[in-house]
């Protein structure tokens, strides 16, 4: 049955419409969970508020479990699901830049729009920075093209690289996530902050 678009069950425009609805829902939940506050977001790096880690990791393992069960029931053909190709060097470099920007700016790209939409000025400044970054990347593309395209690995899965079944790796990931949540809650107790 699934994926719905690739199997022609819904059209491209229906897909965009659904994406629009889901996008609004995503933004709403982000705002309601307090993700429009840069202090709350930066808290994950200082240990006083780890809600970002908990929300995103819970979302990831929920989606992972959902896909695995859908595949088990034959509702989705996982081999047709698009997986972003991995360019190892740019993934690492990009991760460092993104992480540094996250700590300094207090937002990630999605949450900066969330903050800006409720009138937060720091969110708007962050979006400005985003566009400057995109512009610089585009203008200087020739300079970092080699770095950008280095170490292409296709679309590997961690489970296949480790020789484990998808389901077993899923269980390990769930246990790792729960362990992280436990450590995160300890950190919240250790570095409490009253007002932020």
């Amino acid at each position, binding site marked *: 049955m699934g994926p719905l678009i690739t199997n022609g069950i819904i059209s491209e425009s229906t897909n965009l419409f659904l994406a629009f609805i889901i996008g609004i829902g995503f933004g709403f939940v982000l705002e309601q969970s307090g993700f429009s506050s840069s202090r709350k977001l930066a808290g994950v790096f200082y240990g006083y508020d780890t809600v970002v880690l908990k929300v995103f990791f819970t979302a990831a393992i929920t989606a992972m479990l959902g896909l695995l069960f859908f595949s088990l029931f034959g509702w989705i053909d996982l081999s047709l699901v698009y997986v972003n190709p991995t360019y190892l060097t740019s993934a690492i470099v990009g991760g460092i830049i993104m992480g540094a920007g996250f700590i300094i700016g207090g937002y990630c790209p999605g949450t900066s729009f969330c903050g800006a939409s409720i009138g937060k000025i720091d969110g708007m400044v962050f979006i400005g920075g985003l566009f400057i970054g995109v512009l610089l990347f585009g203008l200087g593309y020739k300079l970092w093209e080699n770095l950008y395209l280095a170490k292409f690995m296709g679309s590997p899965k961690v489970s296949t690289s480790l020789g484990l079944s998808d389901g077993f790796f*899923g269980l390990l990931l769930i246990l790792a996530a729960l362990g992280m949540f436990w450590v995160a809650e300890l950190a919240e107790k250790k570095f409490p902050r009253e007002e932020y």
Partner: protein
Amino acid sequence: MRPLKWLAIFIVPMGIIIAAVPQNTTKPYKLTAPQLLAEANNRTQYVTPETVADMIVNKDPSLQLIDVRSQDEFEKFSLPGAINIPLTDLLAEKYADVINQDLKTNVFYSNGTVTANQAWMLTRQLGYANNFVLEGGLNYWFEVIMNPGKPVTTSPDEEFARYNFRRSAGSALGGGGAFQAQTGQSQAAAPKPAVTTGPKKKKVAGGC
């Protein structure tokens, strides 16, 4: 109880279940044996010689004739525009793009229909679409397109129309006698098999 414990109570058993069950490796596009049998019984794989002749005469770019006989036989005689993929080489990697595609109408042919049907069945079992078999094979092709028999005078008009089409198509393809087409040549041609467009992977954008 703390939310973390609630989460753990719900999600850890789910993880254990998914780790314990075997992975679903069935591909929905592969046909099961009963499905394949049903298709073979419905004769959906056949394309009539008239349709093929019409497509050849009209130089239909979507037609791809595939000769599944040996290379020797192919060199002695082949239909116009046909390519040779001997049945023994059908699954060779260099032909993968030919038999698994969603642009053209592939028509397998052999002398009879046995070899062509074997090729069709293999590709169909693999889930490839748009592969067909020339009905009756080359023997039937010669019988009806190259040397069509004149119908008896009491035959219905359709029979004569089909005969005229066959003769004109046959002469255009270098067989039969010279013949002036009296009716529209595509009159008797059956509808062309439809090309099904396969699922394509699409890029999605997303992220935090």
